[in-house]
């Protein structure tokens, strides 16, 4: 067994063990924390599978944002645990066999699919072939923005729809303050002065290098949102009920930039959704980053907008 394979086996065993821990039904808070650790191991697995883009996305969005949202919801639910209902024992008896069956079926299908040689002129090969002409270095960014841009645009619209839904689900009355610690607490001010600008720096870095190296608008947006969450938790920003015009525009700017560039291509006799060049990629990705960061922060704060918090 080579050292690489050993690492893979350790990660794989870790994945299964952590997932078992999550469903084994202990204290809910601890299960959520274990779930976040599970997400981080998934991120390591992505790195081992040769996909740093996904490793970054999984760590920032999959584990980070999902975990933060789960913890926030847990706090709101006042740690009420589910009462056992009457049919629980019957379901428990069924659960294990069904789960084993599902896992086995997926394993058989997956292993069989591994053995098949796909078509040589696959979409991936075509993407790599078309990449040099675009000026991009990262094929994943190429697929997301240039080759299959509609998927990405609609994905931004999904975020928008979810935000509208979360707004509709807002609990009546003023949103409760979220901050756990005040800015006056020693050390927290120091953390803010260092971490908040650093989040912006890292986000911009991820955005810029995303054209050629792993990174991109989604990862950058998630990092920026983490900075926003920090500001909310320390009370620098306080949730407010109504979304002001600035917030609304910030939420819309990502999909809007994509639509405007994609549609105006037709005015120049080009195919719809074609991007005219690298500048368009950077423009759209910047706009996307802003929208994603603001949307995720709002979803976290479960609020319509933000206002500056008092001291």
């Amino acid at each position, binding site marked *: 067994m080579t050292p690489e394979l050993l690492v893979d086996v350790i990660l794989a065993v870790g994945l299964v063990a952590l997932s078992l821990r999550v469903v084994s039904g202990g204290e809910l808070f601890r299960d959520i924390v274990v779930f976040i650790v599970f997400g981080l191991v998934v991120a390591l697995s992505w790195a081992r599978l040769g996909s740093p883009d996904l490793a970054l996305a999984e760590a920032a969005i999959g584990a980070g944002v999902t975990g933060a949202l789960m913890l926030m919801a847990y706090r709101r639910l006042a740690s009420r645990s589910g009462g056992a209902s009457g049919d629980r024992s019957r379901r428990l008896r069924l659960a294990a066999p069904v789960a084993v069956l599902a896992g086995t079926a*997926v394993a058989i*299908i997956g292993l*069989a*699919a591994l053995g*098949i040689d*796909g*078509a*040589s*002129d*696959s*979409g*991936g*090969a*075509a*993407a790599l072939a*078309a990449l040099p002409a675009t000026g991009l270095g990262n094929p994943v960014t190429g*697929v997301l923005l*240039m*080759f*299959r*841009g*509609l*998927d990405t645009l*609609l*994905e931004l*619209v*999904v975020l*928008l*729809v*979810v935000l*509208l*839904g979360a*707004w*509709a*689900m807002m609990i009546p009355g003023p949103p409760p303050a979220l901050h756990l610690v005040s800015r006056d607490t020693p050390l927290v001010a120091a953390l803010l002065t260092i971490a908040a600008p650093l989040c912006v720096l890292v986000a911009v870095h991820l955005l810029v290098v995303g054209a050629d190296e792993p990174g991109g608008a989604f990862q950058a947006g998630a990092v920026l949102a983490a900075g926003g969450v920090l500001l909310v938790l320390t009370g620098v920003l306080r949730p407010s009920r109504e979304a002001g*015009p600035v917030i*609304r*525009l910030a*939420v*819309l700017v990502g*999909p*809007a930039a994509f*639509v405007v560039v*994609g*549609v105006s291509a*037709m005015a120049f006799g*080009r*195919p*719809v*959704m*074609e*991007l005219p060049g690298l500048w368009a990629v950077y423009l759209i990705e910047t706009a996307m980053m802003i929208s994603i960061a603001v949307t995720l922060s709002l979803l976290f704060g479960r609020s319509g907008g933000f206002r500056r918090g008092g001291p």
Partner: protein
Amino acid sequence: MTTEALAGLVFVPLVAGMVAMLLPARAAGVLVIAALALVPVLLWPVTLAVWHGGPVLVELGGFGPPLGIVWRADPLALSMLWFTALVALLVSLHALAGFRPETAEGRRFWPQWPILIAAINALYLSADLFNLYVTLELVTLGAVVLISVGSKSVAMIAAMRYLLLALMASLFYLLATALIYGQTGTLDLYLAGERLQDGTLAAAALMLMITGLLLKSAIFPLHMWLPAAHGNAPWSVSAILSALVVKASLYIVLRVWFWTAVGIDTQMAATFLGVLGAIAILYGSLAALVQERLKMLIAYSTVAQLGYVMLLFPLASTAAFRGVTMHLVAHGFAKAAMFLAAANILRALGHDRLRRMTGIDQKLPIDLAAFALAGVSIMGLPPSGGFLGKWLLLEAAWARSGWGWMAVIVLGSLIAAAYVFRVAALSMFGSGRAGRVEVPRTLASMTALALALVAIALGFAAAPFFALIDRGLPPGMLP
């Protein structure tokens, strides 16, 4: 011109929804209706192009298969687009009369609703397995949001159940998409169909995909979530769900089955799906017959009517395909009419209990007429569109000597007649009298009536409709 029009079908409602986020509710409503009124206009050049030159293809961003996403407007897509456009416009007018701009529901409804239409249009146009996934997620999430817009606990719990099932269904679909991409190297529906080798792996992929999609379309026995969600959704939203949203995932099943799985032996699976459809017809109709509330009755009727679509798989002939397309469209109009009429009755009476509706024939004549006319199409009486759909299915079953299928179709129509007449009878001759009645706005009643009339009138427009459908039959079916 055609490409621009196709792009407009998606981008006009999408941008309208985005701009509506920035406007006060009344202005948003007017803007949304203007945008939705533009959609049928945009459909004309596309329809003409398809009529004269066959399916229209657009490679998005200039990248075609195996890499890029292709929009493909063929007759099946067009008929769905037309039906969506008209239903959406009439439902919007109904909503304008109901979702008062000053209420929270009104503010929430207007940005969401055109985005849902944009997603549905993008779904009908898409010929790409992954793009279909994204659009379907958008449709599902949009629908879940709309169900919960009224903040009614029962509706929100139903929405949550629907959302959890839909998330699971998406995983099935995604896994299948990965298997197909791994084998064929493309996500294009048609190219994947050409490259897909018949075998266990392809069969497993298709099985996974179709299971996921049937879960989302609430086909028996995966229908549990539908009645509670559709029966408790607010005001105009039930009509949107039952007429438009469930059709989206069913449409993908038809696409994948008849255009991608062409080289796969699906005989046994087809019979199985047909049996599921038959059970859905009988179970849904009987359940509708015993409901106590009007909206729940209509919701169970949807479970039954979706079952007819499933009969296409075992029958698989030109007549059946024409019949099912007609049925999809006619059911959409009729069901939207029924739910809008029910919404008016619910608002007028403050409840929709069937036993306490006596006398509404005097006070709400237009709404009851809309319900009855839509009922004519649902039970399949001539000359309605519903009649033609069921008749063609009967013809297809006759040609195959499928006596069992024929019996199910006839029985389903009979029970449908029973539950429609039950509503009419209770509202005219029942014992419990309706209390104070608040007559709904004329616009709300007229939209319901207009939708019901379209469902009937489809029977007269059959010749051009079928001529269009014949220009894009699935491979292996001859006009």
